[in-house]
């Protein structure tokens, strides 16, 4: 099979098919798209409210209001060709975040932990703001606040002093230290500093300290997340304990709503779950009377230490499953548990959509020896019923999907099940084996393999989408400018969602999550048809 797979850096690799490098003019990109554009009746005229912009000249006084849609001809991509960017080395509008951000989030999901960034102050502040804008919850990230001197002489003293201050202020049970580009570049030996720290202050009641290397010039926030989860397991789950029969679930980077749903699922199977990390309470907590320095909830430290007693471990994320063996031992948290303690390891995808949820359920059935609980069986049945009821609205619609690799795989799998054709799947990560996973989840259900890009930025996604006439975008908020340019809906999923309320409450996983996502996709298509229609139907 020839995959439309653009390898790594966006350069044309051998596998790159010649069918879509034509700037949007090729027949195969347009056939479907143009037909529906015209069937909609007004795909060609401006949508209401998105009229051509009358740009006042530079010196004139412009009206004081938010500007109308940034120019564009409206309608589908392909009508106003974008300038091409062959072989670019720069990144425009990144489709990824930096590595330590993922680690900070993962550490936030441990009970009584303080995420700590070893680097200069700016990085921590930027990350906090980014996270807060999505979750609308406090997100404290301590920083060793290196200045110019420390950048030259090393950050050890600041790191130690920082941890002491954090202890005084937060009384944490765990400090999760991640490095930044700065401290990686100056070659700070964080492991060494921490050993010194434990020796120097061994008389104090020290918290556990887990550290992880997260230079952003190597990877994205997902690598940071995975590395932090692995570090938590590797550095804390050291001893073999009595079996307790709980299910160890490494869910990947999913929403608080997802995490609650997953816990319910395991509980309904009659088992207890240790979910690591568990952001559900720390980043979606109740209103408080007293501000607590540390939010409630998260994976209890004792549970992490006792992971070796679990009945089995389930690790979600196709890209994780394909991570090659690292030089420093098992590559993922799940494999650490498997290799160190012989726990059965069930590697599944993010449970998004019917089949990926089935895979998770199969793992739970195998572990617990029990069948799918009635409640979830009914959810599954209702979802299949909805597939039938809703299929006509979305059948053959063309989607562009972007975001973290594992999320993209799950979303594409779901979209494929409801009859939406993913024409482009993109991630900012490299080396995620995205094409293979996409091929697996779409096999036999799609007329053609989607174009798949790793290491993508949004401009590359947009350039590629040009020739593919998409009907909708599926992914985080950052794709909005393109949805607006092309006048097509954006169905929001994943992180960050900075332009809607309740993004962190979105449910993606399980049969209920599949249902919720399907409802949103179908309604986005219906809403577009409705608002584009000159008739104004209220019965569709």
């Amino acid at each position, binding site marked *: 099979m020839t995959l439309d797979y653009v390898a790594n850096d966006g350069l044309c690799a051998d596998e790159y098919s010649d069918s879509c490098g034509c700037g949007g003019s090729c027949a195969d990109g347009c056939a479907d798209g143009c037909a529906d554009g015209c069937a909609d009746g007004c795909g060609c005229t401006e949508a209401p409210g998105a009229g051509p912009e009358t740009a*006042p000249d*530079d*010196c*004139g*006084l*412009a009206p*004081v209001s*938010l*500007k109308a849609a940034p120019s564009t001809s409206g309608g589908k991509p392909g009508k106003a060709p974008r*300038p091409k960017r062959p072989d670019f*080395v*720069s*990144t*425009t*509008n*990144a489709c*990824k*975040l*930096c*590595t*330590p951000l993922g680690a900070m989030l993962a550490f936030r999901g441990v009970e009584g932990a303080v995420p*700590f960034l070893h680097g*200069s*102050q*700016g*990085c921590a*502040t*930027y990350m906090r*703001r*980014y996270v*807060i804008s999505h979750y*609308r919850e*406090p*997100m404290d*990230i*301590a*920083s060793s*606040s290196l*200045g*110019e001197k*420390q950048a030259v002489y090393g950050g050890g*003293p600041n790191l130690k*002093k920082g*941890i*002491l*201050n954090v202890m*005084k*202020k937060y*009384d944490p049970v765990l400090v999760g230290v991640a490095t*930044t*580009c*700065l401290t990686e*570049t100056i070659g700070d030996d964080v492991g060494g500093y921490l050993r010194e720290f434990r020796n*120097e*202050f061994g008389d104090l009641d020290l918290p556990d300290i887990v550290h992880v290397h997260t230079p*952003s*010039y190597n990877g994205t926030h997902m690598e940071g997340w995975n590395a932090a989860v692995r570090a938590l397991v590797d550095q804390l789950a050291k001893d073999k304990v009595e079996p307790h029969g709980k299910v160890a679930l490494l869910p990947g980077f999913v929403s608080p709503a997802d995490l609650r749903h997953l816990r319910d699922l395991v509980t309904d199977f009659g088992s207890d779950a240790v979910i690591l990390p568990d952001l559900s309470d720390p980043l979606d907590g109740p*209103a408080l*009377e007293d501000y607590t*320095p540390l939010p409630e909830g998260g994976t209890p430290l004792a549970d992490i230490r006792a992971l070796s007693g679990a009945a089995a471990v389930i690790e979600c994320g196709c890209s994780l499953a394909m991570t090659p063996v690292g030089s420093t031992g098992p590559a993922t948290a799940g494999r650490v548990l498997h290799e160190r303690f012989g726990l059965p390891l069930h590697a599944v995808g993010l449970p998004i959509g019917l089949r990926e949820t089935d895979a998770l359920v199969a793992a739970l059935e195998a572990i617990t020896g029990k069948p799918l609980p009635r409640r979830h069986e009914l959810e599954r049945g209702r979802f299949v019923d909805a597939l039938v009821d809703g299929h006509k609205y979305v059948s053959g619609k063309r989607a562009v999907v972007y975001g973290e690799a594992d999320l993209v795989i799950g979303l594409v799998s779901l979209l494929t099940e409801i009859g939406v054709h993913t024409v482009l799947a993109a991630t900012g990560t490299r080396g995620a084996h995205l094409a293979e996973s996409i091929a697996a989840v779409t096999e036999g259900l799609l007329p053609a393999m989607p174009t798949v890009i790793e290491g993508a930025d949004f401009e590359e996604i947009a350039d590629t989408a040009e020739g593919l006439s998409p009907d909708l975008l599926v992914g985080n908020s950052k794709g909005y400018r393109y949805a607006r340019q092309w006048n097509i809906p954006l169905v929001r999923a994943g992180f960050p969602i900075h332009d809607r309320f309740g993004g962190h409450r979105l449910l993606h996983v399980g049969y209920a999550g599949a249902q919720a996502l399907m409802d949103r996709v179908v309604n986005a298509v219906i809403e577009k048809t409705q608002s584009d229609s000159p008739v104004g139907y209220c019965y569709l």
Partner: protein
Amino acid sequence: MTTATAPNVTATAECRDADLLDERKKQVHRAGQGPIDMACNRESLAGAVSQRACVFCGSRVVLYPIADALHLVHGPIGCAAYTWDIRGALSSGPELHRLSFSTDLQEKDVIFGGEKKLAAALDELIDLHQPKAAFVYSTCIVGLIGDDLGAVCRKMSEKKGIPVIPVQSEGFKGNKREGYLAACKAMFQLVGTAPTDDVSPLSVNILGDFNLAGEIWIVRGYLERMGIQVVANITGDGRVDDIRRCHGAALNLVQCSGSTMDLAKMMKEKYGTPHLRVSYLGIEDMADSLYAVAEHFESVDPGIVERTRDLVRDELAALMPRLRDIRRDLTGKRAAIYVGGSFKAFSLIKAFRHIGMNVVLVGSQTGTQEEYQELETVCDPGTVIIDDANPLELSHYVRELDVDVFVGGVKERPIAHKLGVGFCDHNHERKIALAGFEGMYNFAREVHASVMSPVWRFVPRRARRATVPAGADA
């Protein structure tokens, strides 16, 4: 240093006032209680969760609104990703500033140097976007790997025939303030490079307004009604060509003096352009600023004073009746202010008085000793003044002072909201214009909308009070 801190770790019982870390005590002051002596403007304390950002952030804030320039962040991806289109600085024309460009340095670049990648990135991006100028921001890593930004920029400038200007904004070299200075130095390289023939003797530049939600257009409108030509809105809806000839303006109006005063000083030194410190927030400050401008130009155009008076009178006549109802509802309510630069705090304190509210807490990320001293003189006795605060401290005072509304940026919002306190976004992400007379009304409405919402009665700290028998404060 390290060992000295150790004994305090166990002695937590001592921590009283806001559980302040010992070293932070010098950064909090209560107005009217002894002389103010803030140990401010120093590096954030390791391990404290500071709300501060870095040098790069400061530069990015100031230069970002120059809409027809290419802003290339030379560094790993995060620094660029976190600053992509998060600010509400509007442009009336080109919108190149809303794209996020990065060299996205990879491991091999860090090892072998990033100059080649930087040159290639500039080459391709300038060709593609045809900007009027390019700013290249240095980030922490670049400071370490020793890329010669200046040399690459010079070469590219020659090759492409546009100014390509390095911004020395390595994050770790201080805080936002140093970033402001780096940005001013970068802009100053543009100043004085274009002819000024058609500049009127009655002309100004607007510095330090970022055109959030179109604020600069409000201010421009007032100035134009007074008969004044605006040569360049340097930091809001900015254009490279305007900045190149802005030395022709007769006066610089400097708001948020922390960020652009340096540029005004450089222009004063080299071109003799005088400057006025102004503020467009709140009624008095807006009016005083316009009067000061009129006074400045009175000798050139005596009619300007009368025109300005008319303008202010008309605006106030329209505004005051609209504020009346709001004021009635808000009288006696309490506000907390925590902003980036302390100058904004002055205007806000006055603005709150206009709607009947008392400011009980005021703080900033980057105030100076003198600014805090000045701030104390406009505060009511007992008002807590705080420098470079962290969430715990802020939340402590919010509760102790029973604050009704908190004015701050996005990082403070969850603290206020978690404790059930109203919030007004007064930072760069906001989408509502708060400048000018019109902005004063928007501000009042914002505060009113938050404070008067019914939701506060359901949050824990008020829910308890609501169940107290009649007569008690509900």
